[in-house]
């Protein structure tokens, strides 16, 4: 697959994309330094700040979730590469300037975790009040070392709402962890994407194949199979997710479908229809839903299916107002 994108010099890709993004949403975000996106209007003082970090190339994630009700800062790295630890330390320091506390939300990927750990060590040395939450909900990776996928958006939302309400750091941390523990994601890939800096396809997949269990950067999973219908695909994925999360009759779920970049909303609606049917048949309550592109992988065809067991408080936090470029509710 040859790369065909609207792009300038790949060396300046990340600064240019962040510049464009900040210019497009000046009422919500601004660019701090070379590659940290922060809220245009800082949160009221005393409230817990939410910081995240991760590679670029997954737009709108992660910086698209900076704004009222969700993140305060997002440190962006190069395409698919974690940002340097120094920038992460600076973002945390800046978040805590008024003596505030911060919650660092990190997706489980090698580079991200290394940078985050170094940043947390520095934060500790400097006496800053920071706690870290690691998201690791991808059921296709081995337990104990699961990849963080689109589930982080759920954590940003509920912890962000708690922080906006004025909850202290421990409470925000607890809510974040509760969401993290109760969410599971599974990805399916249908067609590769090209890496914008190298121009190369990210992975190989046969014309008539799909792979269930693909990582966020096209890492091969183990569920390679011939193309299935929307219903069959939804059945396979939902079954695995429900089993892994041990969902029982009567429980309430949030279901989020995250398009990888090239899969149409049309297809996601078909998938969702089947999910809703299965849940009804199993007497599991579909309490909330979200469909869209939250964390993409360039022009990859495929999607992630995320389910989260929601209690009354998590639902309230999910429903709370938010105003970010990529997730908003009144």
């Amino acid at each position, binding site marked *: 697959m040859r790369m065909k994108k609207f792009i300038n010099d790949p060396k300046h890709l*990340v600064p240019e994309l962040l510049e464009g993004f900040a210019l497009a949403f000046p009422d919500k975000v601004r660019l701090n330094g070379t*590659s940290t996106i922060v809220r245009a209007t800082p949160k009221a003082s005393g409230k817990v700040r939410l910081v995240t970090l991760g*590679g670029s190339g997954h737009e709108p994630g992660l910086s698209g979730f900076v704004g009222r009700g969700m993140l305060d800062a997002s440190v962006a*790295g*190069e*395409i*698919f*590469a*974690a*940002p*340097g*630890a*120094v*920038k992460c330390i600076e973002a945390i320091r800046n978040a805590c300037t008024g003596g505030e506390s911060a919650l660092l939300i990190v997706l489980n*990927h*090698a*580079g991200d975790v*290394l*940078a985050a*750990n*170094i940043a947390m060590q520095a934060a500790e040395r400097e006496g800053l009040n920071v706690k870290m939450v690691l998201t690791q909900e991808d059921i*296709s*990776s*081995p337990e104990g*070392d699961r*990849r963080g996928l689109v589930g982080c958006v759920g954590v940003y939302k509920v912890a962000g709402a708690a922080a906006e309400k004025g909850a202290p750091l421990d409470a925000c941390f607890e809510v974040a962890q509760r969401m993290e523990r109760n969410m599971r994601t599974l990805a399916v890939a249908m067609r590769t994407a090209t*890496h914008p*800096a*190298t121009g*190369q396809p*990210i992975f190989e997949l046969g014309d008539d194949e799909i792979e269930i269990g693909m*990582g966020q*950067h*096209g*890492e*091969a*999973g183990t569920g390679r199979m011939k193309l299935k219908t929307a219903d069959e695909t939804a059945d396979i994925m939902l079954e695995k997710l429900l089993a892994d999360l041990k969902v029982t009759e009567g429980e309430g779920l949030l279901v989020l479908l995250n398009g990888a970049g090239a899969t149409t909303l049309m297809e996601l609606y078909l998938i969702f229809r089947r999910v809703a049917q299965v849940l009804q048949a199993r007497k599991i309550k579909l309490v909330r839903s979200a469909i869209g592109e939250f964390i993409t992988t360039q022009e990859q065809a495929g999607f992630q299916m995320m389910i989260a067991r929601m209690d009354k408080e998590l639902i309230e936090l999910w429903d709370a107002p938010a105003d970010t470029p990529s997730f908003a509710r009144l």
Partner: protein
Amino acid sequence: MFAEAAGRIRREQELLSELDCVGGDGDHGAAMLRTMDMLECAMTQDCHETLNARLKDAGWSVLSVDGGASSAILGTFIAGMGDAVMGHESDCTHLALSFAAGLRAVEKQTKAKPGDKTMMDALVPAVQAFATAANSGESIAHAMEYASDAARKGAEATKGMIAKYGRARYLGEKTRGSADAGATSIALLFRGFSAALKQDEET
């Protein structure tokens, strides 16, 4: 010394990226290029009084590069070196202590060991070989040659391994058969150090 290492890595950028395609997304060469640019720049700054300070600063400069795990590990190693070095950089024993300090700093950040198919497969043997040579009273250039050799062998050995760390760790058998990109970079780094020191000796 760093300029020579940087040059080698620049020349092999495509190879490094190709190796990274097996288990990663093919950008290791580009990441190392950014890392080496930063490192070379930091090491040639004149403003530091001691080698300690220069290494610490260089290490932290590397930690500001967006190079994922690669720059995080390398930056930690170099900054860690700055914790131990005393005196002149051409003192073999002190450089050995410095390398050891760098490695200790890295070991605080990762549990990866030789055999896991990572940078550690080249870094650990290199540091150990240098230390052994230094203890035997070898010159700095000779010790670096042993280190470079050990790093090269370590990187070669990763061909037969399955990745246990990094994003390749989910791929199992698919990762066997080609060398780890990170270990290859480390081997190139030490090869560069060695070549530069040999040149110095000869002039």
